[in-house]
């Protein structure tokens, strides 16, 4: 899908030219081969050089869990992980993913990596229509990796690149706080287990 920005002047005013199109965009009919890993699977495809990563994931691979909200990098609904980094799927071309590992909401759900967050989101009703939710979860995951004990303000700031029209954000902030607390509790339990292992040789609690 073409970027709606193509039909806007970035400076502000919406211009649809006399011919109905503002830019005589370079035709991206050229294709390139890409090899990458998506959710652990090796993928080889010929892709249009102008195709965005999220369109490739949705249209070519049927991974529809990443959503298109704005197609200009503001709403965050298309967030995916590329080599572990949080990326907007609408701001990266599929060919730029050459040789990289891409992970989407589907695989991150199946692996259990998001389970603590998903459970907290469910308990706090931190999603309504669910359209922003995959991107929000991936962003929250990145926050949890980056900051050990973020304040409420830090959480609000960190997710402020993800647009949610339904919740008003508070439940999402609450859910992320809950998930962080639970992870800390698990880590503490785990540390305790490690300690016991070293004291007694018995792996008590370590299975948590």
């Amino acid at each position, binding site marked *: 899908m*073409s970027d*709606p920005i193509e*039909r*806007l002047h*970035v400076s*502000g*005013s*919406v*211009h*649809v*030219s*006399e*011919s*109905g*199109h503002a830019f005589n*965009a370079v035709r991206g009919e050229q294709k390139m081969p890409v090899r990458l890993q998506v959710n652990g699977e090796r993928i080889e495809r010929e892709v*249009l050089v102008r195709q965005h990563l999220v369109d490739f994931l*949705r249209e070519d691979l*049927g991974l*529809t*869990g*990443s*959503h*298109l*909200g*704005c197609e*200009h990098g*503001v*709403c965050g609904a298309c967030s995916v992980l590329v080599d572990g980094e949080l990326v907007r799927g609408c701001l990266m071309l599929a060919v730029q993913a050459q040789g990289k590992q891409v992970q*989407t*909401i*589907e695989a991150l759900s*199946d692996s259990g990596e*998001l389970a603590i967050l998903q459970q907290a989101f*469910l*308990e706090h*009703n931190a*999603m*309504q*229509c*669910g*359209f922003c*939710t995959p991107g929000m*979860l991936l962003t929250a995951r990145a926050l949890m990796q980056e900051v050990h004990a973020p304040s409420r303000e830090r*959480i*609000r*700031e960190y997710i*402020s690149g*993800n*647009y*949610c*029209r*339904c*919740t*008003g*954000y*508070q*439940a*999402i*902030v609450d859910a992320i706080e809950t998930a962080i607390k639970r992870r800390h509790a698990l880590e503490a339990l785990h540390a305790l287990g490690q300690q016991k292992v070293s004291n007694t040789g018995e792996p008590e609690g370590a299975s948590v």
Partner: protein
Amino acid sequence: MNARSELPGLIDHSKTTNGYIGQSTPRTGAKKLLQGRGTYLDDLRLPRLAHVVFFRSPHAHARIKSLKLDRARQQAGVIAVFNGQDIAAFCTPWVGVLGHLKGIKSAPQHAVAVDRVCWQGEAVAAVVAESRRQAEDALESIEADWELLPVVSDMRQALEGKTLVHPDLGDNICFHRELKTEGFDAAWAAADVVVEKTYRFGRHTGVCNEPRAILADYNPADHSLTVYHATQAPNMMQDIFSRHLDIPESNIRVICKDVGGSFGIKVHVYADEMATAALSVMLRRPVKFQADRAESFLTDIHAREHEATIRLACKRNGEILAFDLEDLTAIGPYSVYPRTSGIEGNQVVNLTGGPYRHQQYRAKLDVVFTNKNVTCQYRAVGHPIAVALTEGIVDEAARVLGMDPAALRRINLIPDDHYPYSFPSGIKFEKLSHHQSLDRLLALMNYQDLRAEQASLLEKGVYRGIGLAAMIEVTNPSPAFYGVGGARISAQDGATLRLDPAGMVQVLVSVTEQGQGTEAVFTQIAATAVGVSIDKVRVITGDTAVTPYGGGTWASRGAGIGGEAVLQAGKALRSNILDIAAAILQQDKASLDVRDNAVVSKLSGELKLELAELGRVAYFRPDTLPMGFQSELTVTRHYTPREYGFTFTNGIQASYVEVDIDTGFVKLLKHWCVEDCGTVINPMLVDEQIRGGIVQGIGGAMLEECLYTEDAQLLNGSLADYLVPMSAEMPDIVVDHVQTPTRSSELGAKGAGEAGTAGAPAAVMNAINDALASLGANVSTQPFTPERVLQALGKVA
């Protein structure tokens, strides 16, 4: 790969509880959304699916002199390109008027413009291709020649009528209404104090995260049309596709999969969506239209462009005697079909002054056409305007009288024991709880302490303000809203409940789900009514071929109307289950009950028969039942609110802000809301509806505005330029409830979905003006941007 034991279907959820109503149970059905496994419209894949994009007008008002489509037809992947006349042969035009809005008028609107365009973004040609990419590429090959026509962009200019949007209509007035109570003049003359102020409200729009989308699939073999549609009102759309495409209603099936937010945006008839349905018929294959964000800004309904002057007359002791309102609102070139664009202004007239006990009222409303995008019903329809006007002027009166705003409200709010109550605009309240709500709010926010904090900070040069906003809200509308005006929009809703052989309950409801948790509350009601645990209940909504007929989701009606239908169907099913149990057990029905997924002895609770066993007998071994006995394990019930035109709710909000008088930035420190939506079915879901609604209201008050040039060109059609609330700037919101169940239904639930949006802008405005009061400054034009705050302070021109 998951181990088999980890598959979610095998996890035991058999914890059984009776009485889920009032419990914050997590939303059933939300897990798929949390895993990205929902199905939004753009996720659907059909064989031979074609994609349509639209060539849209760059001008706000122009005649199409020529439109050259041939070159576009030659482009790679293009299946067909059509102009307005081509499509008009398959889709008749419509006029958005209603019989009960006396004198309302509009012009016929086509699916794709014929001869003339009336706003920038109106579709002029449709390009259908094998992929959306190819269709968008082909747009470049369309050549249009225009004759520019004079543009009406300003609503005062529209009202004067020197230039007409539709010359055939004779003027630019879509709808005009006046009312005046008999004792108005006398009350006005008796006033000690009159305060007056003019307020302006910027146009804004819904910005659903999922833009509008439709996939129409025509089958010529049986002349049937299946429409997958991100809509709030599937039966309404079924009727409209039927009438405008000339296909029997029963041959049309409208299916709503997951919808990425609606807020009223997705309850209207959109020309490009009608064109998509027509194209599917014309091309005899499935056709999809998925709006992008720029198209959303240009063509999703906008709302709330108003300029209103409000006057309040009161005695020196604070007793309000009368309100006087003049409202002018501009709706774009067409009254939107089929709900009309007269409703928002009409609501402002109906609701202004709503919480108060005055008996005299005068109002004048003009709804005018312009050459901007259309406006229509968006979350809280008219309420944010009416509440801001009312509460803004009440605060002005408090300042003039030197009274505390909470004290002035306490004097004037309709007493809690004065119901039922007739309001001067003609509306009736069954039972409201303004005073209980005010008391609860003031306690919740520690009002006196907050006032003290505000005063001490002011001495240090910190400008903080507290704003209150009492409100009433239209919910559970009766047929008086649309049906009496001739719109084929159902005021009743239905629920079908079926006990399946394995003891599970299937629930089919005509109300739809857009993320509010509609299906979750129906699960709770059905489980409670039948006597099963919620894990035994499955809810299906959003399919006209499957569910009972009904209105859908709008005007805060889902839980109150659909929920009552579920409750009544559930009670009937429970009774039928007991008939079968009595026959199997050869016991008196009255001695039995259904609890925890089983038939039990009513008195002792002793287990008599699991529902799965009852189901087995009823479906597979009915030969063992008495001759002549027929089990009925599927029941349908409907509900229509009749007694009152609307089941009004009430509530009150408060906002606490800090204004930086050097930059004009407003920091939202905290927000409170006490709301009375009657029976609360799921407190967590209601609270989140309120919170989300408040933030949506704050968006309109602080950030959001569709900006147009003088020649009606949209300036900010992207999310980079049109600001929406993001998490960092939003406050934490404290929500509490008073529960006054409506007696018009057994469930007692009123609506909750719009209350937050209704009151938030007024609360924030009053808080800002409270902060600025000591400087003699005042804002009255929404959104309250830093620039407007600085203008109010006289710091910028």
